[in-house]
């Protein structure tokens, strides 16, 4: 694996927990706040994932 998680982590990003925590706060806010409803955000997320072939 090119980028492996730490022994006690589930993600490579667990190597930088403070940054990962800050990222997850942003991600959560983007889903829970703002004037766009979640179904619309989910459509955008799926479309974006397909365009960049993220494999979901």
């Amino acid at each position, binding site marked *: 694996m*090119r*980028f*492996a998680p*730490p022994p006690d982590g589930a993600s*490579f*990003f*667990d*190597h*930088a927990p*403070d*940054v*990962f925590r*800050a*990222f997850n*706060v*942003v991600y*959560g*806010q*983007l889903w829970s*706040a*703002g004037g766009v409803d979640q179904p619309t955000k989910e459509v955008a997320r799926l479309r974006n994932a397909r365009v*960049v*072939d993220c494999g979901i």
Partner: protein
Amino acid sequence: MTFATWLPVDAGTDVGDLLGGAGDALRALYASLWEAGVDPAVLSACQEAIEATVGARPRTTSGTVDAATAAAVMFAEQYVVDAHGVTDAQAAALHEHFTDAQLAALTTAIATFDALARVRALLAVAGGTPVTFTMEAD
């Protein structure tokens, strides 16, 4: 950074303030990137390369850079163009110059810089209303 937008907002608006709590969270994430143990010069070089690749700024030629910066910038540009195109050789070069903790922070930084540059590009229009999208604290 100030740019002109097609958004129907007042001049001087900061786009981050339109995001509610996500704006403050984004600024906190941005600040954390610069405190995560990666040389700020490397981060700046990556940010400039990403913005140039997205078309948000002219590409500058600053002469030779050290091997660590070159590896990081190559990774950043590959991320923008095609994240699946990162090669084993590029990954090996990154591991040669950065710890896993630095690589985790660097990758998050690249993703953040890419997102910010694309948002600015998406919202920009010639002759529009001047706004800012500021990540740095006052």
